[in-house]
């Protein structure tokens, strides 16, 4: 088989962090080649290197048997490579045809020849079986059709090797199936497809070959037919993660947070939560696992009052808080460590003490008769800096002068020291160094032991295994199943994360 692409010993570093290490990858021409791996395994970095968006520190790129130097995307496009990014870059007010030809407009007498662009778009659409109406405005179309347009953009530029970065992340199962059909059509016409995913099911269904990346390395490239799902999981995760579960005593109390049939929309106004139900009891950590973008962030936002729900009920200590404002929910006893801490969690330009004040500025003793109690604030700030080990010069240091881990500790210090009964913790250690991770985990455990009901959302499985008493797996806005924290089965959780209910274990999918 001729090779469409051959990557030889590609290494890419970002500072001290090695995103790709000595990666060799051979992609056969006329095949669908899946690249699979966990978040942060280096899939996207590798593809950005291949598309000329990043320059490798070491290694060679060979395309169709020729060694190529790809200083920018234009060079990659000229070499016949096209990339469909995860985040679409379409202009809503332009038509499909205008978007397809944006940047390479067909012109006649200096003016854009819309008729020709529409004709060409229709031709491409027919040739590759990508149904679109070239004259429709993109802003009115669904995500699935937007993706077709992105693919058409790539085809219009003459690509013969097409890279799709997590193309199904935004699609419904039906749309995904259609996409796969299209991709098979491509290879039937002699084109090559590289397909990035972490959905096992899909990879099994659509790909001819699969490469597994783990921690920046290519750990295996095999024909898909030779592998089972559990082989893939094994390869992705490596040896079973050292489950250094933090020691604990079971001390579960009454139900604090009770969520029933909760529905909500995301920023694109598409359903992000589809009937989520669960409960969190005092003194337990309930983990939410799942691939990013499956409704976890929306769940935290709805529970903290920052996003409206469209259906369902939320109860806190038996009181209904559905539809309450962020202020009321805080007052009712919910603390929230947001996933986007630099946007929502802190004011980067404000001092540590001013960041610690947020949300409690109206409460005694933080303020009296509307006047901030500065002495108390300073005293508390110093105490919290000490207790949470925030590495800063003093209470007046601005948040932006601190490292990511220390900024997160400010957020924890604020949210954990209120009189909340329930804590929503979203990605507590994302972008946080190992040392700080350790102390953040310790702090979360202390909160558990103090009898708080904790909902812990994380895309890092090892974090959940370390901390959670129970793990709920989310996929596509629903809870796929529940796994006890002390009996985690890698394969089972991986399948649930991929949207598959494993038959053999279906009995563990309890009363969720």
């Amino acid at each position: 088989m001729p090779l469409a692409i051959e990557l030889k010993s590609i290494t890419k570093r970002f500072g001290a962090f090695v995103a790709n290490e000595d990666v060799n990858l051979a992609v056969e021409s006329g095949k669908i080649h899946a690249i699979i791996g966990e978040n942060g395994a280096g899939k996207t970095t590798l593809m950005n290197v291949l598309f000329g968006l990043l320059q490798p520190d070491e290694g060679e790129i060979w395309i169709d048997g020729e060694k190529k130097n790809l200083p920018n995307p234009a060079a990659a496009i000229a070499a016949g490579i096209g990339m469909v990014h995860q985040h679409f870059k379409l202009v809503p007010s332009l038509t499909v045809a205008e978007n397809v030809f944006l940047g390479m407009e067909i012109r006649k007498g200096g003016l854009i020849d819309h008729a020709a662009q529409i004709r060409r778009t229709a031709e491409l659409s027919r040739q590759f079986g990508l149904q679109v109406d070239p004259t429709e405005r993109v802003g009115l179309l669904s995500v699935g059709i937007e993706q077709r347009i992105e693919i058409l953009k790539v085809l219009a530029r003459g690509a013969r090797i097409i890279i799709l970065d997590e193309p199904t992340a935004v699609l419904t199962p039906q749309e995904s199936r259609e996409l796969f059909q299209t991709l098979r059509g491509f290879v039937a016409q002699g084109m090559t497809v590289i397909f990035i995913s972490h959905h096992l099911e899909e990879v099994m269904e659509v790909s001819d070959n699969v490469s597994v990346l783990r921690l920046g390395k290519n750990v295996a490239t095999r024909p898909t037919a030779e592998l089972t799902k559990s082989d893939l999981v094994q390869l992705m995760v490596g040896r079973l993660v050292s489950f250094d579960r933090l020691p604990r005593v079971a001390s579960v109390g009454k139900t604090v947070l009770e969520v029933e049939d909760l529905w909500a929309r995301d920023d694109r106004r598409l359903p992000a939560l589809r009937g989520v139900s669960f409960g969190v009891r005092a003194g337990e950590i309930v983990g939410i696992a799942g691939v990013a973008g499956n409704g976890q962030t929306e769940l935290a936002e709805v529970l903290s009052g920052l996003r409206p729900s469209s259906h369902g009920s939320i109860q806190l200590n038996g009181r209904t808080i559905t539809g309450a404002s962020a202020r009321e929910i805080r007052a009712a006893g919910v603390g929230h460590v947001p996933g986007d801490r630099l946007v929502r969690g802190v004011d980067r330009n404000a001092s540590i003490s001013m960041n610690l004040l947020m949300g409690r500025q109206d409460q005694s003793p933080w303020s009296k008769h509307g006047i901030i109690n500065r002495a108390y604030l300073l005293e508390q700030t110093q105490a919290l800096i000490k207790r949470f080990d925030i590495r800063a010069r003093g209470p007046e240091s601005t948040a932006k002068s601190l490292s990511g881990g220390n900024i997160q500790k400010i957020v924890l210090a604020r949210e954990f020291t209120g009189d909340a009964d329930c804590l929503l913790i979203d990605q507590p250690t994302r972008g946080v160094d190992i040392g700080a991770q350790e102390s953040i985990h310790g702090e979360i455990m202390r909160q558990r032991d103090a009898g708080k009901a904790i909902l812990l959302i994380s895309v890092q499985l090892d974090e959940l295994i370390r901390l959670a008493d129970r793990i709920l797996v989310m996929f596509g806005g629903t809870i796929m199943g529940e796994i006890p924290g002390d009996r985690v089965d890698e394969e089972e959780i991986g399948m649930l994360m991929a949207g598959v209910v494993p038959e053999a274990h279906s009995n563990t999918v309890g009363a969720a």
Partner: protein
Amino acid sequence: MEVLERLLNISLVVATIRTTAPILLVALGGSFTTKAGIFNIGLEGQMLVGAFFAVIGTIATGSPWLGVLCGVAAALTLALIFALLVVSFKANEVVVGLALNILAGGLTVSLMKAIFGTRGSIFGHGLVGLPALRLPNVKDFGWFGQIISGYTPLVYAAFLFVPVLILFYNRTRLGLYIRVVGEKPEAAEALGISITRIRYVSSLLCGLLAGLAGAHLALGYTTMFTENMSSGRGFMAVAILIFSNGDPLKILLGCLLFGFSDALSLRLQTLGISSYLVLAVPYLVALIALFALSYRSRPRVIQETLASMGRALSVKSNTIQPAAATDASKP
């Protein structure tokens, strides 16, 4: 009835066209920056220096056309400073726009005092306006001829710019890129379109038309320069730009509304209504339009939501049906 007849007749239409032209020119200028995603509150100042330097240029050279050129050059200078600070130095658009307006006000009065030793207005000194164009054979068209003939050239230019801009945004590469930069900068970036360059170009195109608007105010609409003679037209233009979203046709409609209210209010004055109230009418119209249209945009958001929900929920039927439908429609 009599009152109505006195108010509504052909000369009102003519007056509307006259009063629409200056604001139309400056609003069309603002269309470039609006489309490129820049909030340009500095139109007022660009128009004012355009008017002043058009007068200075005309007096200096004796030719109103060279005067127009001077006015445009002055407005372009202001537009360049605006772009430099806002695009290159990332300064706050509102702050820079306001400061340039204040600069324009102070500069024109100071220079007027320095050059002519007077304040208030400049007229005489050999100042000539742009000639009115009498279209040939207009008599054959009856009342329509009356409406379309006899304006100064920049009035025709203003109305001509509407279709030109529509063509520009829809059919030229630059126009398309301006829209893309304003609407989805990351798409422009991904395609290698320089956002900085496009924003500079839009700012300068805006300065060009704002300068023409000023020149028209001083050499066509009147034949003089008065302190602060733009009198808020630049701000009204910004109001129009907000609710027209920079679309030339909607700008035309908005400007006609203001032109009409302006012309009508001038007539109301003849009915003995206080000139102060009458002069406030265009500003009030702008405010009411601004509020009313922002109120209206609310249900639209809701409708959009419902529509997209409906689409999302009916994905199943959606993804299967179109294929079937197109298959069926094939001959």
